[in-house]
């Protein structure tokens, strides 16, 4: 059992800066997801914790001791790979036993541990099979088994579900979460899939351009994104943004965009405290299409550019204006599937003040504070 601490970790590949002075504290037994688009430095960070890459600068601590110079197998860390990476010429049992054999463990002890793991992961009947005889999900289970059998303090996962089909991914997500609960070890999980991050993590570190943009619980990063990158990356669809500025019209202060003016209630602008507001944000599910008994929602109008029914919901792609620019910067709205609208209709949209976000010219959230 051990926590992991990164202190000012930097990794350069030639002239490319992959990870930039990253500091992160992962508590013992915590499930932390490193989330970000490809090339954001999350896998490099994981590889450095694993010992497969050496940091250019900074320290990595496991349970309080520095491990930059410790070889991967001596770190008490196991890893599950994106490509699963099972040894193709070995049976399932041989694959799981491999790390123990390399550690020169006694045969009876190996057999016992392999059996325990097989029972834990429900792969007992597969032990004699070869890797090529397994389905994608079974292979993933075996790969988990090869990590679990070592009883490491820390588990690393490098996008382990990305090669599975959608249904299986959901299944394995729960399986990994349950495994974490049972083992109580520290899990560090890399993914670009925000749903995986939100469903499994205790805390999410959202990464972009080699930097941690925000580190917090799923509720925090979703509900209080620190900047536009985080706000857009989490959620499906990501948060809607409209560019504009704070202005005054007909005696009321509000947000002025190219296509509309949205009056803002007292306290919002003052609450944000700055005059540098450049972007208004709201999530698709918070935009109201039915305005009966409207509360404090400001109302704007937009044209339906396209509709995306997904069964449980109906997503409307709204364009403000007729320009190509407007068609590129669509505003997504989640509506009830029964809503009757056609492409080209102009619809009123309610933007509740308590669901609004305001960002400054650097993309930082200034409201809510």
């Amino acid at each position, binding site marked *: 059992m051990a926590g992991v601490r990164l202190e000012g970790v930097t990794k350069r590949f030639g002239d490319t800066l992959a990870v930039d002075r990253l500091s992160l504290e992962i508590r013992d037994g915590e499930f932390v997801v490193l989330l970000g688009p490809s090339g954001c430095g999350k896998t490099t960070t994981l590889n450095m914790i*694993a*010992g*497969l890459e050496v940091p250019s600068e900074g320290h990595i601590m496991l349970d309080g001791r520095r491990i930059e110079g410790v*070889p*991967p*197998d001596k770190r008490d*860390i*196991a*890893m599950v*790979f*994106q*490509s*699963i*990476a*099972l*040894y*193709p*010429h*070995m*049976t399932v049992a041989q694959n799981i036993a*491999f*790390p123990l054999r*390399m*550690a020169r463990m006694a045969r009876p002890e190996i057999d016992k541990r392999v059996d325990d793991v097989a029972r834990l992961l429900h792969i007992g*009947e597969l*032990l*004699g*099979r*070869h890797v090529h005889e397994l389905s994608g999900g079974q292979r993933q289970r075996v790969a988990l088994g*090869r990590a679990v059998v*070592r009883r490491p303090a820390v588990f690393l996962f490098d996008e382990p579900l990305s090669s599975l089909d959608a249904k299986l991914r959901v299944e394995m997500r729960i399986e990994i979460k349950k495994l974490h609960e049972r083992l109580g070890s520290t899990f560090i999980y890399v993914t670009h899939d925000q749903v995986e991050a939100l469903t499994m993590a205790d805390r999410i570190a959202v990464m972009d351009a080699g930097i941690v943009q925000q580190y917090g619980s799923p509720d925090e990063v979703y509900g209080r994104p620190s900047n536009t990158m985080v706000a857009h990356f989490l959620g499906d669809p990501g948060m809607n943004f409209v560019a504009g500025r704070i202005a005054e019209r007909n005696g009321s202060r509000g947000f002025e965009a190219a296509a509309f003016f949205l009056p803002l209630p007292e306290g919002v602008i003052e609450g944000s405290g700055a005059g540098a507001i450049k972007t208004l944000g709201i999530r698709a599910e918070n935009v109201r299409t039915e305005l009966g008994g409207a509360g404090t929602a400001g109302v704007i109008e937009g044209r339906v550019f396209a509709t995306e029914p997904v069964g449980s919901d109906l997503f409307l792609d709204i364009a403000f204006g007729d320009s190509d620019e407007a068609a590129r910067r669509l505003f997504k709205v989640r509506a009830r599937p029964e809503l009757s609208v056609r492409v080209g209709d102009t619809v009123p949209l309610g933007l509740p003040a308590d669901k609004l976000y305001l960002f400054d010219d650097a993309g930082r959230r200034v409201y809510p504070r």
Partner: protein
Amino acid sequence: MATKQRPYMSDARFALLIVAVVLAFHVIIIAMPLGYSFYLSLHETNIILRRSDYVGFDMWQEALDTPEVIQATLLSLEFAAISVVLSFALSLGIAVVLDLDFPLRGLLRALVLMPWAISEIVTAGMWTMVTDPGWGVFNGILVPLGIVPEGFVWLNENWALFWLSVAFVWHIAPLGAFFFLAALQSIPDALYRAARMDGAGPLARFWYVTVPHIRYAVLIVLVVMTVDAFRQFDLVYAYTAGGPGTVTELLPLQIYRFNFQFSQYGLASASSFILIIIATVLATAYFFLLSRRRRVEREVRQAAVITG
């Protein structure tokens, strides 16, 4: 002019057509000469009397009773053994190095293949320049340093076969290296990283990750090199011509002498069948040796399915 609508050829027909062409080619350049050779081996031919008498397997018996044939066969085996061991090790070593990431790797990969592209006759000429006692490279460097005496004969009766093998290895190893390199490059990098995490050192990684992936390349390389060593004539003829004495008088050279110098067509043909049989036996042995493991694994698996 009315054109007849031509039906599309079915896959099976097309496949047959392609195979038929290859088959015809094989019949003409392999099966027919082989058949004729077999026919010759059953006859005693007298070129002066212009007679050819059927003698059954007498020529085969005579080949086995001729000490020169036995000696040449043993020498060929020795030559093949030295050559295959050396070229196998060298080609695997070259491949492992070429698989590493370094600048100008592409250029080096192309250059390494050069010796294989050079014909055996030219190879023999080059190695003559290296080992000649009077003006060879070896003596040119080593005599002034006092390591070997003036006019040292590299191709002496004890070492001629070895240097002949070295010349052959120089020529053939690049081919093996390319087979191995192709196999090495098919190994996913993630397997090596997984093995590192699992505590496998460099040797264990080579044994548990690399070797299983290159097993079929090993089979191909062994077969190609063994067969090539056994049928090697050009290099032997041009480099040592069987000498000194008869210490490098390999079987193909012996067969050549029977046929073209002594006009013993029957004996030459019968002897060449010894060559074919040995090469075939060895190739088959490799095949069984290297595919045996698979079979055992399959049996274990079936047993596991039945009992489990």
